[in-house]
Protein backbone atom coordinates (compact mmCIF):
# COMPACT_ATOMS: atom_id res chain seq x y z
CA UNK A 1 0.00 0.00 0.00
CA UNK A 2 1.10 3.55 -0.71
CA UNK A 3 2.93 5.04 2.30
CA UNK A 4 1.03 8.01 3.71
CA UNK A 5 1.58 11.15 5.74
CA UNK A 6 -0.32 11.71 8.98
CA UNK A 7 -2.61 14.12 7.10
CA UNK A 8 -3.38 11.59 4.37
CA UNK A 9 -4.09 8.89 6.96
CA UNK A 10 -6.59 11.01 8.90
CA UNK A 11 -8.35 12.07 5.70
CA UNK A 12 -8.47 8.49 4.36
CA UNK A 13 -9.89 7.21 7.61
CA UNK A 14 -12.66 9.82 7.67
CA UNK A 15 -13.51 9.20 4.03
CA UNK A 16 -13.81 5.45 4.64
CA UNK A 17 -10.91 4.76 2.29
CA UNK A 18 -7.79 2.64 2.71
CA UNK A 19 -5.59 5.07 0.89
CA UNK A 20 -5.70 8.60 -0.51
CA UNK A 21 -3.29 10.49 -2.76
CA UNK A 22 -2.76 14.26 -2.95
CA UNK A 23 -5.20 15.74 -5.46
CA UNK A 24 -7.96 13.21 -4.69
CA UNK A 25 -11.35 14.76 -4.04
CA UNK A 26 -12.95 13.01 -1.11
CA UNK A 27 -16.10 13.28 0.92
CA UNK A 28 -15.19 12.94 4.58
CA UNK A 29 -17.01 12.68 7.88
CA UNK A 30 -16.39 15.62 10.17
CA UNK A 31 -15.86 15.14 13.93
CA UNK A 32 -16.21 18.76 15.02
CA UNK A 33 -17.66 21.79 13.23
CA UNK A 34 -17.06 25.25 14.69
CA UNK A 35 -18.55 28.67 14.09
CA UNK A 36 -18.18 32.08 15.75
CA UNK A 37 -20.19 35.28 16.05
CA UNK A 38 -18.96 36.54 12.67
CA UNK A 39 -19.29 33.40 10.58
CA UNK A 40 -22.09 31.38 12.19
CA UNK A 41 -24.94 33.85 11.48
CA UNK A 42 -24.46 33.31 7.73
CA UNK A 43 -24.23 29.53 8.24
CA UNK A 44 -27.40 29.53 10.33
CA UNK A 45 -29.27 31.57 7.75
CA UNK A 46 -28.15 29.14 4.99
CA UNK A 47 -29.19 26.23 7.20
CA UNK A 48 -32.65 27.71 7.57
CA UNK A 49 -32.89 28.90 3.97
CA UNK A 50 -32.73 25.42 2.53
CA UNK A 51 -35.16 24.12 5.10
CA UNK A 52 -32.87 22.11 7.37
CA UNK A 53 -34.42 21.31 10.73
CA UNK A 54 -31.76 19.58 12.81
CA UNK A 55 -27.99 19.61 13.09
CA UNK A 56 -26.33 16.27 12.32
CA UNK A 57 -25.10 15.89 15.90
CA UNK A 58 -25.73 18.32 18.74
CA UNK A 59 -22.45 17.39 20.45
CA UNK A 60 -20.37 18.12 17.38
CA UNK A 61 -21.55 21.55 16.28
CA UNK A 62 -19.76 24.11 18.44
CA UNK A 63 -20.63 27.80 18.60
CA UNK A 64 -18.29 30.28 20.26
CA UNK A 65 -19.17 33.98 20.02
CA UNK A 66 -15.67 35.21 20.85
CA UNK A 67 -14.88 37.96 18.38
CA UNK A 68 -16.81 40.94 19.71
CA UNK A 69 -17.42 39.59 23.22
CA UNK A 70 -18.45 41.21 25.54
CA UNK A 71 -20.83 42.37 22.82
CA UNK A 72 -19.47 45.69 21.65
CA UNK A 73 -22.59 47.19 20.09
CA UNK A 74 -26.16 46.47 19.08
CA UNK A 75 -25.20 44.88 15.79
CA UNK A 76 -22.75 42.43 17.35
CA UNK A 77 -25.20 41.65 20.14
CA UNK A 78 -27.77 40.85 17.45
CA UNK A 79 -25.32 38.47 15.76
CA UNK A 80 -24.69 36.69 19.05
CA UNK A 81 -28.41 36.45 19.67
CA UNK A 82 -28.70 34.46 16.43
CA UNK A 83 -26.14 31.96 17.77
CA UNK A 84 -27.74 31.86 21.17
CA UNK A 85 -31.24 31.17 19.83
CA UNK A 86 -29.90 28.51 17.47
CA UNK A 87 -27.89 26.82 20.23
CA UNK A 88 -30.98 26.66 22.44
CA UNK A 89 -33.26 25.45 19.67
CA UNK A 90 -30.80 22.74 18.59
CA UNK A 91 -29.87 21.89 22.20
CA UNK A 92 -26.16 22.24 21.39
CA UNK A 93 -23.93 20.83 24.12
CA UNK A 94 -21.17 23.30 23.43
CA UNK A 95 -22.25 26.90 23.38
CA UNK A 96 -20.18 29.44 25.31
CA UNK A 97 -21.10 32.95 26.31
CA UNK A 98 -20.65 35.41 29.16
CA UNK A 99 -18.25 34.09 31.77
CA UNK A 100 -17.80 30.83 29.85
CA UNK A 101 -16.55 32.21 26.58
CA UNK A 102 -12.93 32.18 25.50
CA UNK A 103 -11.10 32.56 22.23
CA UNK A 104 -12.35 29.57 20.27
CA UNK A 105 -9.02 27.97 19.36
CA UNK A 106 -7.80 28.15 22.93
CA UNK A 107 -11.13 26.99 24.33
CA UNK A 108 -11.75 23.84 22.26
CA UNK A 109 -8.49 22.02 23.07
CA UNK A 110 -8.69 23.11 26.72
CA UNK A 111 -12.19 21.64 27.07
CA UNK A 112 -11.19 18.39 25.36
CA UNK A 113 -13.70 19.00 22.56
CA UNK A 114 -11.07 18.45 19.89
CA UNK A 115 -8.94 15.32 20.24
CA UNK A 116 -6.03 13.73 18.35
CA UNK A 117 -7.00 12.00 15.10
CA UNK A 118 -10.08 14.19 14.60
CA UNK A 119 -11.14 15.83 11.38
CA UNK A 120 -12.20 19.34 12.36
CA UNK A 121 -13.60 22.15 10.27
CA UNK A 122 -14.27 25.64 11.48
CA UNK A 123 -15.64 28.74 9.86
CA UNK A 124 -12.57 30.56 11.05
CA UNK A 125 -9.24 30.51 9.28
CA UNK A 126 -7.24 29.71 12.42
CA UNK A 127 -9.05 26.41 12.88
CA UNK A 128 -5.73 24.93 11.73
CA UNK A 129 -4.55 25.36 15.37
CA UNK A 130 -5.71 21.85 16.35
CA UNK A 131 -3.00 20.26 14.24
CA UNK A 132 -0.97 20.74 17.42
CA UNK A 133 -2.91 17.82 18.91
CA UNK A 134 -2.41 15.60 15.87
CA UNK A 135 -5.81 16.36 14.34
CA UNK A 136 -6.51 17.41 10.76
CA UNK A 137 -8.21 20.76 11.06
CA UNK A 138 -8.87 23.45 8.53
CA UNK A 139 -10.68 26.74 8.10
CA UNK A 140 -13.66 26.98 5.77
CA UNK A 141 -16.39 29.51 5.07
CA UNK A 142 -19.91 29.85 6.40
CA UNK A 143 -21.58 27.90 3.59
CA UNK A 144 -19.23 24.98 4.18
CA UNK A 145 -20.11 25.15 7.87
CA UNK A 146 -23.80 25.10 7.01
CA UNK A 147 -23.27 22.03 4.84
CA UNK A 148 -21.52 20.20 7.68
CA UNK A 149 -24.10 21.25 10.27
CA UNK A 150 -26.70 19.52 8.10
CA UNK A 151 -24.85 16.48 6.76
CA UNK A 152 -21.84 15.93 9.02
CA UNK A 153 -19.72 15.65 5.90
CA UNK A 154 -17.73 17.85 3.56
CA UNK A 155 -15.67 17.56 0.38
CA UNK A 156 -11.92 17.99 0.60
CA UNK A 157 -9.07 17.94 -1.81
CA UNK A 158 -6.28 15.86 -0.31
CA UNK A 159 -3.36 18.29 0.04
CA UNK A 160 0.28 17.66 -0.65
CA UNK A 161 2.41 17.99 2.47
CA UNK A 162 5.55 19.98 3.13
CA UNK A 163 7.73 18.69 5.95
CA UNK A 164 9.59 21.13 8.20
CA UNK A 165 12.30 19.56 10.33
CA UNK A 166 13.65 21.52 13.30
CA UNK A 167 16.88 20.20 14.78
CA UNK A 168 18.84 21.28 17.82
CA UNK A 169 17.77 23.21 20.89
CA UNK A 170 15.72 26.39 21.00
CA UNK A 171 17.65 29.48 22.06
CA UNK A 172 16.53 31.46 25.06
CA UNK A 173 13.26 33.39 24.54
CA UNK A 174 12.51 31.47 21.34
CA UNK A 175 9.13 29.75 21.10
CA UNK A 176 6.89 28.08 18.56
CA UNK A 177 5.81 31.53 17.40
CA UNK A 178 9.34 32.31 16.27
CA UNK A 179 9.72 29.03 14.40
CA UNK A 180 6.55 29.61 12.41
CA UNK A 181 7.38 33.29 11.78
CA UNK A 182 10.75 32.17 10.50
CA UNK A 183 9.10 29.70 8.12
CA UNK A 184 6.64 32.30 6.83
CA UNK A 185 9.52 34.73 6.34
CA UNK A 186 11.26 32.08 4.24
CA UNK A 187 8.41 30.76 2.12
CA UNK A 188 6.05 33.76 2.05
CA UNK A 189 2.35 34.22 2.72
CA UNK A 190 1.44 31.84 -0.10
CA UNK A 191 4.46 29.55 0.28
CA UNK A 192 2.32 26.62 1.39
CA UNK A 193 -0.83 27.47 -0.60
CA UNK A 194 -3.32 24.54 -0.60
CA UNK A 195 -0.79 22.37 1.28
CA UNK A 196 -0.47 20.71 4.66
CA UNK A 197 2.51 21.75 6.77
CA UNK A 198 3.98 19.02 8.96
CA UNK A 199 6.34 20.10 11.73
CA UNK A 200 8.81 17.54 13.04
CA UNK A 201 12.32 17.10 14.45
CA UNK A 202 13.92 17.03 17.88
CA UNK A 203 13.06 20.65 18.69
CA UNK A 204 9.37 20.05 17.96
CA UNK A 205 9.34 16.88 20.06
CA UNK A 206 10.32 18.87 23.12
CA UNK A 207 8.01 21.80 22.38
CA UNK A 208 5.11 22.50 24.77
CA UNK A 209 1.53 22.09 23.57
CA UNK A 210 1.07 25.86 23.80
CA UNK A 211 4.01 26.49 21.50
CA UNK A 212 2.80 23.78 19.14
CA UNK A 213 -0.58 25.48 18.96
CA UNK A 214 1.04 28.82 18.15
CA UNK A 215 2.89 27.13 15.27
CA UNK A 216 -0.07 25.30 13.76
CA UNK A 217 -2.24 28.38 14.32
CA UNK A 218 -0.18 30.37 11.84
CA UNK A 219 -0.03 27.72 9.08
CA UNK A 220 -2.79 29.71 7.38
CA UNK A 221 -0.45 32.71 7.31
CA UNK A 222 1.66 30.72 4.83
CA UNK A 223 -1.50 29.98 2.83
CA UNK A 224 -1.65 26.38 4.07
CA UNK A 225 -4.76 24.28 4.41
CA UNK A 226 -3.53 22.82 7.66
CA UNK A 227 -0.57 22.45 9.99
CA UNK A 228 0.11 19.31 11.98
CA UNK A 229 2.49 17.90 14.57
CA UNK A 230 2.66 14.13 15.11
CA UNK A 231 1.22 13.42 18.57
CA UNK A 232 3.54 12.08 21.27
CA UNK A 233 3.93 11.85 25.06
CA UNK A 234 3.50 15.62 25.43
CA UNK A 235 0.25 15.44 23.48
CA UNK A 236 -0.92 12.53 25.59
CA UNK A 237 -0.19 14.33 28.85
CA UNK A 238 -2.28 17.26 27.62
CA UNK A 239 -5.28 15.38 26.24
CA UNK A 240 -5.70 12.43 28.57
CA UNK A 241 -7.22 14.48 31.37
CA UNK A 242 -9.37 16.53 28.99
CA UNK A 243 -10.57 14.43 26.07
CA UNK A 244 -14.31 13.98 26.04
CA UNK A 245 -14.12 11.25 23.39
CA UNK A 246 -11.72 8.40 22.59
CA UNK A 247 -8.80 9.61 20.50
CA UNK A 248 -6.29 8.12 18.13
CA UNK A 249 -2.66 8.92 17.41
CA UNK A 250 -1.67 8.83 13.76
CA UNK A 251 1.85 9.15 12.42
CA UNK A 252 3.47 9.53 9.01
CA UNK A 253 4.99 6.50 7.36
CA UNK A 254 8.77 6.59 7.07
CA UNK A 255 8.67 6.71 3.29
CA UNK A 256 5.67 9.03 3.00
CA UNK A 257 5.88 11.45 0.08
CA UNK A 258 6.35 15.21 0.61
CA UNK A 259 6.30 17.92 -2.02
CA UNK A 260 9.21 19.49 -0.17
CA UNK A 261 11.32 18.98 2.96
CA UNK A 262 12.88 21.98 4.68
CA UNK A 263 15.37 21.68 7.52
CA UNK A 264 16.25 24.19 10.19
CA UNK A 265 18.91 24.30 12.87
CA UNK A 266 17.41 26.00 15.92
CA UNK A 267 20.83 27.35 16.88
CA UNK A 268 20.31 29.88 14.05
CA UNK A 269 16.89 31.10 15.13
CA UNK A 270 16.49 34.12 17.38
CA UNK A 271 13.18 35.75 18.35
CA UNK A 272 11.43 36.97 15.21
CA UNK A 273 9.40 40.07 14.46
CA UNK A 274 7.03 40.35 11.47
CA UNK A 275 7.02 43.95 10.29
CA UNK A 276 4.03 45.67 8.66
CA UNK A 277 2.01 44.76 6.64
CA UNK A 278 2.46 41.04 6.04
CA UNK A 279 3.43 38.16 8.31
CA UNK A 280 6.19 37.30 5.81
CA UNK A 281 8.11 40.52 6.57
CA UNK A 282 10.06 38.81 9.32
CA UNK A 283 13.34 39.92 10.82
CA UNK A 284 15.47 38.91 13.78
CA UNK A 285 14.42 41.10 16.69
CA UNK A 286 17.99 42.41 16.96
CA UNK A 287 17.66 43.84 13.45
CA UNK A 288 14.55 45.88 14.26
CA UNK A 289 16.03 49.02 15.74
CA UNK A 290 14.42 52.12 17.20
CA UNK A 291 10.85 51.29 16.37
CA UNK A 292 8.82 53.33 18.89
CA UNK A 293 5.49 51.84 19.90
CA UNK A 294 2.21 53.08 21.34
CA UNK A 295 0.58 49.82 22.28
CA UNK A 296 1.35 46.20 23.12
CA UNK A 297 -1.23 43.42 22.94
CA UNK A 298 -0.52 40.07 24.58
CA UNK A 299 -3.29 37.62 23.79
CA UNK A 300 -5.20 35.89 20.94
CA UNK A 301 -5.54 32.32 19.70
CA UNK A 302 -1.84 32.40 18.85
CA UNK A 303 -0.32 33.55 22.15
CA UNK A 304 -2.93 34.13 24.84
CA UNK A 305 -2.30 30.89 26.73
CA UNK A 306 -0.87 30.31 30.18
CA UNK A 307 2.68 29.73 28.98
CA UNK A 308 2.50 33.04 27.11
CA UNK A 309 1.28 34.95 30.16
CA UNK A 310 3.95 33.24 32.27
CA UNK A 311 6.73 34.46 30.00
CA UNK A 312 5.27 37.97 29.97
CA UNK A 313 5.01 37.94 33.77
CA UNK A 314 8.60 36.82 34.09
CA UNK A 315 9.75 39.80 32.05
CA UNK A 316 7.39 42.35 33.58
CA UNK A 317 8.03 41.37 37.21
CA UNK A 318 9.05 44.48 39.11
CA UNK A 319 9.09 46.56 35.92
CA UNK A 320 6.97 49.42 34.62
CA UNK A 321 5.60 49.81 31.16
CA UNK A 322 7.20 52.77 29.34
CA UNK A 323 5.37 56.07 29.66
CA UNK A 324 2.40 56.40 27.30
CA UNK A 325 2.60 52.81 26.12
CA UNK A 326 -0.67 50.94 26.52
CA UNK A 327 -0.14 47.31 27.47
CA UNK A 328 -3.25 45.17 27.03
CA UNK A 329 -3.15 41.60 28.32
CA UNK A 330 -5.94 39.27 27.22
CA UNK A 331 -6.01 35.80 28.76
CA UNK A 332 -7.57 33.62 26.04
CA UNK A 333 -10.04 31.65 28.19
CA UNK A 334 -11.74 31.90 31.60
CA UNK A 335 -9.54 29.03 32.83
CA UNK A 336 -6.37 30.80 31.76
CA UNK A 337 -7.71 34.00 33.31
CA UNK A 338 -8.29 32.43 36.71
CA UNK A 339 -5.04 30.43 36.63
CA UNK A 340 -3.06 33.56 35.79
CA UNK A 341 -4.73 35.33 38.67
CA UNK A 342 -3.94 32.49 41.10
CA UNK A 343 -0.32 32.45 40.04
CA UNK A 344 0.04 36.14 40.77
CA UNK A 345 0.54 37.27 37.18
CA UNK A 346 -2.25 39.82 37.45
CA UNK A 347 -0.44 41.60 40.28
CA UNK A 348 2.66 41.78 38.14
CA UNK A 349 0.74 43.04 35.11
CA UNK A 350 -1.23 45.62 37.07
CA UNK A 351 1.83 46.93 38.89
CA UNK A 352 3.56 47.24 35.54
CA UNK A 353 0.67 49.40 34.34
CA UNK A 354 -1.16 46.91 32.11
CA UNK A 355 -4.86 46.72 31.34
CA UNK A 356 -6.26 43.22 31.73
CA UNK A 357 -9.10 42.41 29.39
CA UNK A 358 -11.63 39.60 29.71
CA UNK A 359 -11.15 36.77 27.19
CA UNK A 360 -12.01 38.09 23.70
CA UNK A 361 -10.60 38.37 20.20
CA UNK A 362 -11.09 42.11 20.62
CA UNK A 363 -8.22 44.13 19.18
CA UNK A 364 -6.69 41.17 17.31
CA UNK A 365 -9.06 41.83 14.42
CA UNK A 366 -9.58 45.51 15.15
CA UNK A 367 -12.89 44.72 16.81
CA UNK A 368 -12.74 46.61 20.10
CA UNK A 369 -10.83 46.77 23.41
CA UNK A 370 -7.70 48.42 22.02
CA UNK A 371 -7.99 49.96 18.54
CA UNK A 372 -5.16 51.93 16.97
CA UNK A 373 -5.39 55.50 15.66
CA UNK A 374 -3.71 56.67 12.45
CA UNK A 375 0.04 56.79 12.92
CA UNK A 376 0.02 54.51 15.95
CA UNK A 377 2.13 51.42 16.17
CA UNK A 378 1.64 48.21 18.11
CA UNK A 379 3.54 45.08 18.95
CA UNK A 380 1.11 42.18 19.16
CA UNK A 381 1.40 38.50 19.91
CA UNK A 382 -1.41 37.92 17.39
CA UNK A 383 -1.06 36.43 13.94
CA UNK A 384 -1.89 39.10 11.34
CA UNK A 385 -0.44 42.52 10.64
CA UNK A 386 -2.41 43.36 7.51
CA UNK A 387 -3.21 46.97 6.65
CA UNK A 388 -5.83 48.21 9.11
CA UNK A 389 -6.02 44.91 10.96
CA UNK A 390 -5.96 46.52 14.40
CA UNK A 391 -7.48 49.88 13.58
CA UNK A 392 -6.83 52.78 11.24
CA UNK A 393 -5.32 51.95 7.84
CA UNK A 394 -2.40 54.19 8.77
CA UNK A 395 -1.62 52.23 11.93
CA UNK A 396 1.03 49.51 12.06
CA UNK A 397 1.25 46.11 13.72
CA UNK A 398 4.45 44.21 14.45
CA UNK A 399 3.99 40.53 15.31
CA UNK A 400 6.18 38.93 17.95
CA UNK A 401 6.25 36.37 20.75
CA UNK A 402 5.09 37.31 24.28
CA UNK A 403 8.64 37.78 25.58
CA UNK A 404 9.47 40.32 22.89
CA UNK A 405 6.09 41.98 23.34
CA UNK A 406 6.57 42.36 27.11
CA UNK A 407 10.14 43.61 26.73
CA UNK A 408 9.00 46.10 24.11
CA UNK A 409 6.29 47.40 26.45
CA UNK A 410 8.94 48.14 29.06
CA UNK A 411 11.32 49.80 26.62
CA UNK A 412 8.69 51.70 24.64
CA UNK A 413 10.24 50.37 21.46
CA UNK A 414 10.75 46.96 19.93
CA UNK A 415 13.26 45.23 22.17
CA UNK A 416 15.01 41.91 22.75
CA UNK A 417 14.00 40.34 26.09
CA UNK A 418 17.67 40.30 27.12
CA UNK A 419 17.61 44.10 27.14
CA UNK A 420 15.09 44.02 29.98
CA UNK A 421 15.80 40.94 32.08
Amino acid at each position, binding site marked *: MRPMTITEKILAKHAGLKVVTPGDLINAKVDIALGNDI*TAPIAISEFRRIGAKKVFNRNKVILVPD*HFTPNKDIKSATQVKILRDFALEQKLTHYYEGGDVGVEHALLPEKGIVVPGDLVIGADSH*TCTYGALGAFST*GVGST*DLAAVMITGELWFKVPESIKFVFRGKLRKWVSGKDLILRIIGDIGVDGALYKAMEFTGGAIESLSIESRMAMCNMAIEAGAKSGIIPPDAITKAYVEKRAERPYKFYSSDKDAVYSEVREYDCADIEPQVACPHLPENTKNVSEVKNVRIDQVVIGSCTNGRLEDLAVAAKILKGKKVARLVRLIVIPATPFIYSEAMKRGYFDIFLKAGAVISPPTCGPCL*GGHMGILAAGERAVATTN*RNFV*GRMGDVKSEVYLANPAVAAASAVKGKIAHPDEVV
Partner: protein
Amino acid sequence: MKFTGNVWKYGADIDTDRIIPARYLNTSDPLELAKHCMEDEDPAFASRVQQGDIIVAEKNFGCGSSREHAPIAIKAAGISCVIARSFARIFYRNSFNMGLPILESDEAVDTASRGDVLEVDMDSGKIHNVTKGLRFKARPVPPFMQELIKAGGLMESIRKRGGI
Protein backbone atom coordinates in the same frame (compact mmCIF):
# COMPACT_ATOMS: atom_id res chain seq x y z
CA MET B 1 -22.28 32.76 -18.07
CA LYS B 2 -20.78 35.72 -19.96
CA PHE B 3 -19.67 39.00 -18.45
CA THR B 4 -18.48 42.33 -19.81
CA GLY B 5 -17.07 44.99 -17.53
CA ASN B 6 -14.32 47.43 -16.68
CA VAL B 7 -11.22 46.32 -14.85
CA TRP B 8 -10.35 47.27 -11.28
CA LYS B 9 -6.72 46.25 -10.93
CA TYR B 10 -5.08 45.31 -7.62
CA GLY B 11 -1.75 43.94 -6.43
CA ALA B 12 -0.59 40.77 -4.69
CA ASP B 13 -1.82 39.30 -1.40
CA ILE B 14 -5.02 41.35 -1.13
CA ASP B 15 -6.24 40.05 2.22
CA THR B 16 -9.83 39.74 3.36
CA ASP B 17 -9.34 42.61 5.83
CA ARG B 18 -8.78 44.85 2.83
CA ILE B 19 -11.72 43.38 0.95
CA ILE B 20 -14.01 43.96 3.92
CA PRO B 21 -12.49 45.28 7.18
CA ALA B 22 -13.41 43.47 10.39
CA ARG B 23 -14.88 46.66 11.83
CA TYR B 24 -17.87 46.09 9.53
CA LEU B 25 -18.33 42.41 10.36
CA ASN B 26 -20.96 43.03 12.98
CA THR B 27 -23.42 42.52 10.14
CA SER B 28 -23.74 40.09 7.27
CA ASP B 29 -26.14 42.19 5.20
CA PRO B 30 -24.71 42.11 1.64
CA LEU B 31 -25.63 45.71 0.79
CA GLU B 32 -24.15 47.04 4.04
CA LEU B 33 -20.96 45.08 3.34
CA ALA B 34 -20.83 46.26 -0.28
CA LYS B 35 -20.69 49.89 0.91
CA HIS B 36 -17.31 49.19 2.51
CA CYS B 37 -15.89 46.76 -0.04
CA MET B 38 -12.17 47.34 -0.72
CA GLU B 39 -12.33 50.43 1.50
CA ASP B 40 -8.85 50.13 3.02
CA GLU B 41 -7.22 49.36 -0.33
CA ASP B 42 -9.12 51.70 -2.63
CA PRO B 43 -11.54 54.13 -0.95
CA ALA B 44 -13.01 55.12 -4.36
CA PHE B 45 -14.06 51.58 -5.24
CA ALA B 46 -17.41 51.28 -3.49
CA SER B 47 -18.80 54.56 -4.82
CA ARG B 48 -17.54 54.20 -8.41
CA VAL B 49 -17.86 50.48 -9.19
CA GLN B 50 -20.38 49.71 -11.95
CA GLN B 51 -22.60 46.68 -12.20
CA GLY B 52 -20.65 43.98 -14.08
CA ASP B 53 -17.14 45.35 -13.45
CA ILE B 54 -14.31 42.89 -13.04
CA ILE B 55 -11.56 42.73 -10.41
CA VAL B 56 -8.15 41.67 -11.72
CA ALA B 57 -5.48 41.00 -9.11
CA GLU B 58 -2.05 39.50 -8.67
CA LYS B 59 -1.30 36.34 -6.63
CA ASN B 60 -2.98 35.03 -3.48
CA PHE B 61 -6.15 37.11 -3.71
CA GLY B 62 -8.37 36.78 -0.63
CA CYS B 63 -5.74 35.58 1.81
CA GLY B 64 -6.32 35.83 5.55
CA SER B 65 -9.55 35.19 7.31
CA SER B 66 -12.30 32.76 6.36
CA ARG B 67 -14.99 35.46 6.27
CA GLU B 68 -17.47 34.70 3.53
CA HIS B 69 -18.34 38.37 3.87
CA ALA B 70 -15.44 38.99 1.47
CA PRO B 71 -16.90 37.31 -1.65
CA ILE B 72 -20.37 38.44 -0.51
CA ALA B 73 -19.24 42.09 -0.38
CA ILE B 74 -17.55 41.84 -3.79
CA LYS B 75 -20.59 40.28 -5.40
CA ALA B 76 -23.02 42.69 -3.77
CA ALA B 77 -20.85 45.61 -4.94
CA GLY B 78 -21.71 44.55 -8.48
CA ILE B 79 -18.52 42.78 -9.49
CA SER B 80 -19.30 40.05 -12.05
CA CYS B 81 -16.10 38.05 -11.64
CA VAL B 82 -12.60 38.11 -10.19
CA ILE B 83 -9.55 37.12 -12.20
CA ALA B 84 -6.28 36.58 -10.34
CA ARG B 85 -2.95 34.87 -10.74
CA SER B 86 -3.95 32.68 -7.77
CA PHE B 87 -6.46 32.64 -4.93
CA ALA B 88 -6.08 31.85 -1.24
CA ARG B 89 -7.80 28.53 -0.63
CA ILE B 90 -10.62 29.48 1.73
CA PHE B 91 -11.58 32.40 -0.51
CA TYR B 92 -11.55 30.02 -3.48
CA ARG B 93 -13.88 27.58 -1.72
CA ASN B 94 -16.15 30.33 -0.46
CA SER B 95 -16.48 31.88 -3.92
CA PHE B 96 -17.66 28.62 -5.47
CA ASN B 97 -19.94 27.89 -2.54
CA MET B 98 -21.72 31.23 -2.65
CA GLY B 99 -21.56 31.79 -6.39
CA LEU B 100 -18.94 34.45 -7.11
CA PRO B 101 -17.32 33.49 -10.44
CA ILE B 102 -13.51 33.41 -10.24
CA LEU B 103 -10.81 32.53 -12.76
CA GLU B 104 -7.03 32.14 -12.71
CA SER B 105 -4.99 33.49 -15.61
CA ASP B 106 -1.42 34.83 -15.59
CA GLU B 107 -1.70 36.45 -19.04
CA ALA B 108 -4.93 38.27 -18.32
CA VAL B 109 -3.38 39.66 -15.13
CA ASP B 110 -0.12 40.59 -16.88
CA THR B 111 -1.85 42.65 -19.56
CA ALA B 112 -4.93 44.17 -17.91
CA SER B 113 -4.87 47.80 -16.79
CA ARG B 114 -7.39 49.68 -14.76
CA GLY B 115 -10.40 50.61 -16.86
CA ASP B 116 -9.77 48.06 -19.66
CA VAL B 117 -12.93 46.41 -20.94
CA LEU B 118 -12.90 42.62 -20.53
CA GLU B 119 -15.29 40.01 -21.86
CA VAL B 120 -15.30 36.77 -19.89
CA ASP B 121 -16.98 33.51 -20.82
CA MET B 122 -17.09 31.44 -17.64
CA ASP B 123 -18.09 28.20 -19.37
CA SER B 124 -15.15 28.13 -21.79
CA GLY B 125 -12.75 30.12 -19.59
CA LYS B 126 -12.12 32.56 -22.48
CA ILE B 127 -11.05 36.07 -21.54
CA HIS B 128 -11.04 38.86 -24.14
CA ASN B 129 -9.35 42.15 -23.35
CA VAL B 130 -11.41 44.30 -25.72
CA THR B 131 -9.44 47.48 -25.03
CA LYS B 132 -6.11 45.87 -25.92
CA GLY B 133 -7.39 43.34 -28.45
CA LEU B 134 -5.93 40.35 -26.60
CA ARG B 135 -7.45 36.92 -26.00
CA PHE B 136 -6.55 34.38 -23.32
CA LYS B 137 -7.79 31.17 -21.84
CA ALA B 138 -8.02 30.87 -18.07
CA ARG B 139 -6.81 27.82 -16.17
CA PRO B 140 -9.61 25.24 -16.41
CA VAL B 141 -11.97 25.03 -13.44
CA PRO B 142 -11.77 21.49 -11.95
CA PRO B 143 -14.76 19.37 -13.10
CA PHE B 144 -15.89 18.91 -9.50
CA MET B 145 -16.18 22.67 -9.04
CA GLN B 146 -18.03 23.00 -12.36
CA GLU B 147 -20.54 20.46 -11.08
CA LEU B 148 -20.94 22.50 -7.92
CA ILE B 149 -21.68 25.63 -9.97
CA LYS B 150 -24.14 23.72 -12.17
CA ALA B 151 -25.92 22.42 -9.10
CA GLY B 152 -26.36 26.04 -7.99
CA GLY B 153 -23.74 26.04 -5.23
CA LEU B 154 -23.04 23.80 -2.26
CA MET B 155 -26.37 24.24 -0.46
CA GLU B 156 -28.40 23.48 -3.56
CA SER B 157 -26.30 20.39 -4.24
CA ILE B 158 -27.03 19.17 -0.70
CA ARG B 159 -30.72 19.80 -1.17
CA LYS B 160 -30.67 17.89 -4.46
CA ARG B 161 -28.80 14.98 -2.90
CA GLY B 162 -31.57 14.77 -0.36
CA GLY B 163 -29.28 15.81 2.47
CA ILE B 164 -32.20 17.28 4.38
